């Protein structure tokens, strides 16, 4: 069913532009914020959701006229944006770059959870009051709302352009975007600029939420995450921080998706889009519309990681903690506690893996759950389909995750900064989508059932003690190996790449080789972690390791302290433990979790134990 005539292609093109139009609404705001604050604002999707709910209140509860509703949404979300800047970001001005990113993740948890509690998690209808006429184009049609969305997109971009070109504040915004410190020295009130930009972008984000809510006649508290992700991808295609580029990138993303559906079918939509994203990044490492190649300017000190004074735990304390951890099941027999800690050890493996690439080498990966998935599937399929004993399948899965993970991320090795994060995010999504679509190997959406448990001499190791001890021992071994690696020449080489890759290259450090090495070690560790999970869970499918797991892993790593082995373990224990601890709070617990996360970032932005 390959479209052969011209007609369908026209339809696919129009559909692609229509959906790209919707992505553009979010991408523009994200680009604006990135432009001045160099921050990927993960809370933007939540602002969009809030806008939709304010609109819902206005339309269905207060029966406001549509223009008043729009104004209310813009004002409400603009204020929210200013608040986000004030409480989430300004206090972190001098903190490591990564801290505000984490703060936006924390803020989005708080906003989403609050909405869920206030408005219930049920989706709601958001009827449009617009006329219902439609214009037939090709085989399909577009309606008033499509035109309104396009109008708002182009109109707001034009307004922004005018604001940036012709007003004093606009000049200040542009000056800040070019060089924040210089602007500050010239008397620009950078805080005011940031606040303004957040307010404008958030107002726009809120209006987008309302428009999209009306478009689909559906709003729900979780609508922001996926939409925000698409917006981020779209603005990256255009080149971060570039407002017209964001619009073009959005339309292009819409077209890519639509053509992907046309060529391969609906279930390949995102797979095709993410592969295209990676190709674009590889060919144009700074986005499609970036200026000609530029050497990054010489920084005054290290590039990415802010100065840090790590907290060094004394050896005897670590020894004591290890002995206590190993002995715990003798003292406490509560299977729930042991299982929770066992989960923490398994996630610590993931955090350990991520802290090596994101912390030590500075390649902030947002798709690390993909390595878990590869390891889990490899081990499960080796054990089930190839009949390999589980104890052998687990390390083999580690090797496969190391090899496959490194190969998949390899194209991203030439990218820098945020582009690495987005490319790895894409790789993570690609892994999930390949698992979903490659049915002959992975059983597709049905998942792998009956994964055998770990067993020794025919005795399955499934009791509470074993789910605690096995991950703990594996974790201790890998933590030891990683500590040793960090104290060898590799430790300083990898950290040198993170601190200043240009200087490192000038001293003979082959970036590809060491990034590859780091990803391979990380892939092995995470792969083994995923494999263990598969054998404990007995069932895995493409939803076992979803994108939020990658976010969680990154949160653990930042919370513990970048590159910090003990920190990764601590981060995992805290973030696996807190939601369990807050269980008594029932549906409030994720809200509390978000607040605690924000407080931790606020008061310990370099992580609990600090960057090493």
């Amino acid at each position, binding site marked *: *069913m390959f*479209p052969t005539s011209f007609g*369908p292609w026209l339809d*696919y093109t129009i*559909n*692609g532009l229509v*959906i790209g139009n919707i992505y553009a609404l979010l991408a523009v705001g994200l680009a604006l914020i990135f432009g001045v604050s160099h921050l990927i604002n993960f809370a933007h999707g939540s602002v969009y959701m809030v806008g939709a709910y304010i609109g819902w209140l206005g339309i269905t509860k207060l029966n406001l006229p549509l223009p008043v509703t729009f104004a209310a949404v813009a004002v409400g979300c603009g204020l929210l944006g200013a608040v986000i800047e004030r409480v989430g970001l300004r206090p972190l001005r001098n903190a490591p770059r990564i801290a505000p990113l984490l703060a936006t993740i924390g803020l989005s948890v708080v906003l989403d959870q609050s909405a869920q*509690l*206030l*408005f219930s*998690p*049920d*989706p*709601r*209808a958001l*009827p449009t009051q617009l006329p219902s006429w439609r214009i*037939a184009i090709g*085989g*399909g*049609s577009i*309606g008033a709302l499509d035109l309104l969305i396009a109008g708002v997109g182009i109109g707001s971009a034009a307004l922004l352009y005018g604001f940036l070109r012709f007003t004093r504040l606009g000049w200040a915004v542009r000056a800040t975007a070019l060089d924040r410190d210089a602007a500050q020295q010239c008397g620009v009130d950078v805080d005011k600029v940031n606040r303004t930009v957040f307010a404008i972008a958030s107002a726009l984000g809120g209006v987008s939420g309302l428009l999209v809510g009306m478009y689909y*006649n*559906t709003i*729900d508290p*979780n609508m922001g995450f*996926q939409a925000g992700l698409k917006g981020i991808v779209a603005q990256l295609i255009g080149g971060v921080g570039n407002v017209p580029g964001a619009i073009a990138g959005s339309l292009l993303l819409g077209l890519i998706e639509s053509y992907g*559906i*046309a060529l391969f*079918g609906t*279930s390949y939509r995102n797979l095709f889009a993410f592969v295209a994203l990676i190709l674009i990044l590889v060919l144009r490492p700074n986005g499609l519309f970036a200026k000609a190649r530029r050497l990054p300017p010489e920084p005054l000190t290290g590039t990415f990681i802010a100065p840090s004074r790590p907290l060094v735990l004394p050896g005897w304390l670590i020894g004591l903690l290890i002995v206590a951890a190993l002995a715990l099941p003798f003292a406490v027999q509560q*299977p*729930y506690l*042991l*299982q929770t800690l066992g989960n923490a050890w398994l*996630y610590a493996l993931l955090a350990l893996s991520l802290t090596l690439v994101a912390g030590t080498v500075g390649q902030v990966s947002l798709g690390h759950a993909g390595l878990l998935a590869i390891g889990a599937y490899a081990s499960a399929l080796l054990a089930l389909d190839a009949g390999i004993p589980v104890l052998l399948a687990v390390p083999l899965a580690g090797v496969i995750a190391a090899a496959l993970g490194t190969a998949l991320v390899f194209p991203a090795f030439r990218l820098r900064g945020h582009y690495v994060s987005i490319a790895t995010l894409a790789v993570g999504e690609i892994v999930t989508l390949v698992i*979903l679509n490659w049915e002959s190997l992975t059983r*597709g*959406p049905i*998942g792998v*059932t*009956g994964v055998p448990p770990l067993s020794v001499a025919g005795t399955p190791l*499934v009791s509470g003690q074993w*789910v605690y001890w096995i991950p703990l021992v594996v974790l201790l071994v890998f933590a030891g190996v990683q500590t040793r690696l960090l104290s060898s020449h590799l430790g300083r080489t990898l950290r040198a790449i993170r601190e200043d890759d240009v200087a490192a290259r000038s001293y003979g450090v082959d970036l590809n080789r060491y990034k590859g090495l780091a990803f391979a070690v990380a892939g092995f560790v995470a792969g083994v972690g995923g494999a263990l*999970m598969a054998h*404990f*869970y*007995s069932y895995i*499918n493409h*939803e*076992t390791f979803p994108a939020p797991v990658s976010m969680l892993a990154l949160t653990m790593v930042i919370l513990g302290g970048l590159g910090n082995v003990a920190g990764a373990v601590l981060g995992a224990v805290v973030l696996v433990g807190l*939601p369990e601890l*807050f*269980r*008594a*709070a*029932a*549906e409030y*617990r*994720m809200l*509390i979790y978000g607040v605690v996360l924000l407080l931790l970032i606020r008061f310990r932005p370099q992580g609990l134990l600090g960057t090493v």
Partner: protein
Amino acid sequence: MLDVIARSAALVAGTLAVLTALGVAQPARSQTAADPTKEPVVIGVSGPLTGAYAQYGAQWQRGFDLALEQVNASGGVQGRPLRVQFEDSQSDPKQTVAIARKFVADSRIVAELGDFTSAASMAASPIYQNAGLVQFGFTNSHPDFTKTGDFIWSNALNQAEEMPVLADYAVSALGGKRIALLFINNDWGRTSKDLFTKAAKERGAEVVGAEGYLADEKDFRSALVRVRDTKPDGIALISYYADGAQITRQLREAGLSQPVVAAGSVYSPKFLELGGAAVEGVHTTTPFFPGDPRPEVQTFVSAYTAKHGIDPDAYSSRAYDALLLLATVIRQSGPDRKAIRDGLATVKDAPSVVYGTVRFDPQTRRVDKPFSTRLVVKNGAFALWQPGSTDAAKAAN
């Protein structure tokens, strides 16, 4: 509006209360009640109250609340009150396994209900099986869900039963010969797709195209171009209510006016709310239907609407049904973990809102031969379908 303000206040107050309480609050247990025969019988529930699937957990909660109220109003089970301990899992496997350990170790808990997604539910199955605590997955339709062992049961509608019924509706009743299928690309959708395709073929129709979409997809315009180009004379949806409503809207906007048949999982007041005028004329089959004249259904529906102010949907009715079923089994066999498993195997014609009466096939541990009702959306409500009104869908355009 007022309720939102009230809830805002509750939210703030609740957060503060919980935060202050956290230091002191230990899981409420061992309040050393004197008489074990008056101790409540507890059923553990593992389900999503927060996170991406929270809406389903909220629906469950409404069903459980009503069921508990009714059971306890009529004296509880064997003279003891029935309780539910609902633990939020976010349908995250690492949390469901922890919850499973918790339930298993808690001797008050005699059976477990949930979780929601297959990935989350089936990760915990080995723990329930090894400990000998019944895991009763009342929405788990994964074909292998009950295969972990004899303590894993499900009364979820079996797709092998449902899909032929749906195909029958689409082909024999509505006269579809070339059917295009849109299915949610997860274990349920994928299994259903195969079963539907097979059943349609057996009835002399052809499935001319099958488009699998991701769970969080909202835009179907391009998928529908593919559907259109297969020139179908009927469209079948293997969807939940939110995506089902979305597809139907976009389908009508794209000018596709073929009759639409949707799997029973679209059965929800939300389907009507989100789909608006576009879902007029959509056909579905469901075992549960509030308009069903059976007295137990009518009691349930009126009690539910009185309590929650909205119509029941598929998930809350299933939750209600599952809890009542367990109560029946406990009444018959006693509040004992193993007795409940044995009781499930032998329970005969247990009353059920969803199925009329239920019996389990002790081999597959699934419901034996459930029945279904044919419905159509008419004037913004689900109504029993009368043969002869096949062109309801066309009339809607």
